[in-house]
């Protein structure tokens, strides 16, 4: 690099000419508008902290730590799906075989339950075919994050279209592309977590876990945490569990509106889902389980959360059923460890603690109203005293 004084001299020289040439039209370069361009596919990368994940977690991390190229990541995904499909008795060799055969009418009424990975690949292949036949109608939204000679664009929205284009390029025979993808380029200064959140929540299909991650990103941002540019573990998002919007009133409205106009309570409910174990989070995200069904699972100990989530999927449990199972499970769990008293005993013991001498009048009135006559009330007190004396003598023994 040239020394500073030299740079100044160049600037002076070029500056003189610049002023001359821009005379009368000083605004001609000031174009910071959003542009639509066709970009080389390799220059575009998905956002590693995007709450809405497309690839399964393991592939997501391998891809974002540059251990896999996009083609390799897709190859791994296809292999993963091939194994799952073979286990379900519907093996395939070519991804196009995933699509229903239009000539085969026997399958018409048969609804096949696909695993999340199968569903993902099926959706990507479908999208790829649409792109092949009709072209890429909606451009991706990307942020220009180029630095030096490294030209790169981070996807804000459209990660599925990105993967579908790779699939089309490398896995679907007979397709000739120029390797470009249409993108709306947002200047880096206009990009923000809030913008991304609005884009995400405006679209349907954001899983409860993705909403939880989204909520966490917003909370962390308003608290000044730096959002990393590499893939992060769930612990990064969990930092938000200790934070809330109380100290950041000026941002509350913006955060809630970015989350799709939900209220504070709902926001907290989503964020709380990050208390789930890593495995439970991953499974719940992959199967897009809603928040209501996941909420009771939070009461369970860490080590059984995954099992509960798996049961939700396996038996397609409703929220109420999940709640009942979790509560019963907890009760039984408690019974195993401590012999609990009956509810009426619990209530009596608690009221003994709460009552004091000032309640005497109140007690008399309550007793007469319950027993109807003073005689009956006295008899009740006698039996109670006897009972309490017996209890006392037992306590002495213990």
């Amino acid at each position, binding site marked *: 690099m040239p020394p500073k004084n030299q740079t100044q001299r*160049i600037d002076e020289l070029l500056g003189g000419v*610049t002023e001359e040439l821009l005379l009368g039209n000083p605004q001609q370069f000031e174009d910071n508008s959003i542009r639509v361009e066709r970009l080389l596919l390799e220059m575009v990368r998905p956002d590693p902290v995007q709450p809405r994940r497309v690839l399964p977690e393991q592939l997501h991390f391998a891809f974002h730590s540059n251990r896999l190229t996009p083609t390799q990541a897709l190859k791994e995904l296809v292999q993963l799906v091939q194994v799952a499909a073979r286990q379900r008795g519907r093996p395939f060799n070519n991804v196009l075989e995933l699509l229903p055969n239009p000539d085969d009418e026997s399958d018409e009424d048969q609804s096949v339950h696909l695993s999340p990975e199968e569903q993902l690949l099926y959706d990507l292949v479908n999208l790829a075919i649409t792109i092949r036949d009709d072209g890429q109608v909606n451009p991706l939204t990307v942020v220009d994050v180029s630095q030096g000679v490294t030209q790169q664009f981070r996807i804000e929205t459209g990660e599925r279209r990105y993967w579908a284009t790779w699939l089309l390029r490398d896995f679907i025979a007979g397709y000739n592309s120029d390797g470009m993808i249409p993108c709306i380029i947002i200047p880096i200064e206009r990009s923000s977590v809030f913008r991304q959140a609005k884009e995400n929540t405006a679209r349907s299909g954001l899983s409860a876990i993705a909403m939880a991650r989204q909520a966490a990103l917003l909370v962390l941002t308003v608290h000044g945490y730096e959002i990393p540019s590499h893939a992060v573990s769930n612990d990064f998002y969990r930092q938000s569990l200790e934070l809330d919007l109380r100290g950041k009133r000026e941002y509350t409205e913006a955060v809630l509106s970015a989350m799709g106009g939900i209220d504070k309570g709902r926001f907290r409910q989503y964020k709380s889902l990050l208390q789930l174990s890593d495995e439970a989070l991953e499974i719940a995200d992959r199967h897009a389980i809603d928040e209501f069904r996941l909420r009771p699972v939070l009461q369970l100990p860490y080590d059984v959360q995954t099992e509960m989530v798996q049961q939700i999927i396996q038996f397609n449990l409703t929220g109420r059923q999940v709640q009942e199972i979790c509560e019963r499970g907890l009760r039984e769990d408690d019974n195993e460890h401590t012999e609990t008293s009956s509810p009426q005993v619990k209530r009596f013991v608690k009221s003994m603690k709460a009552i004091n001498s000032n309640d005497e009048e109140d007690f008399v009135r309550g007793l007469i109203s319950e027993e109807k006559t003073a005689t009956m009330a006295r008899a009740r007190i006698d039996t109670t005293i006897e009972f309490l004396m017996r209890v006392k003598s037992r306590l002495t023994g213990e």
Partner: protein
Amino acid sequence: MTRVFVFTNHKGGVGKSTSATNTALGIAGMLRRAGAPNSRVLLIDTDSQAHATLVTTGKKDYGTDDSLYTVLMADRQNAAQTLLNCIVQSTWDTDLHVLPASPMLEGAERELMGIAGAPYRLADPLSRIINRYAAIVIDTRPSFSLMTEMGLIAATDAIVPVEPRYLETVGLMSVIGKINDIREGWRQPNLRVSGILVTKMNTRIRGHNHLLDELKTHSVLGKLLLGVVPANEAVSYAHQNHQSIFNYDSKASASKAYAQFVGKLVQRIAKGGA
């Protein structure tokens, strides 16, 4: 549309590399000063002597896997990505990027000869990343070889640097005719002869003045004259020290002439017109 300026003349020593390198730096600097949203400029060195590469990057030992040679030899599908991977940052300015030349380019011409689509091996991948740059400057070798044709096919504006002693109308017209042949032959309607840059002008030599006056009054060539760079020792010393003329001596008459010339190109970039 990003303008691609190619500096070409089949005569050697007329200042192609010096003009290409200083112009590329000048455009980047001037666009930045003008507040342009994108001031990145890519300099592509297609000359196997790699002078432009050496002065702008400080090294010339680029080879089979990090130079223009790599791009030309890459699979068609991967060529654009290879191009991106081979681009390096100039030591002159952060906004000046360089696609380095390599002595291997000499052999590349032979290797590519007869391969279908060979003349488009630069234009094709370049067209996929072109929007990333505000302007592209291509330095060519002193001959109308395959490599020069590749540069011209990828370009929008051909600029002919010429020494006054070669300013005869006939000679210049032959260069322009050759560029037109490529434009017509390869169906490149975007390519046009955009200007003539007179270099090494010595006003004390009567012949120089005479030939320059003749050029100015010529009905076609006169309109193409974009700048006159005086013969100046600073230019040679700057080149020798691997510095730009603006860095070496910003007050030198050649620096001012190049700045004026660059100004005219930037005006075209800004207006997007002729």
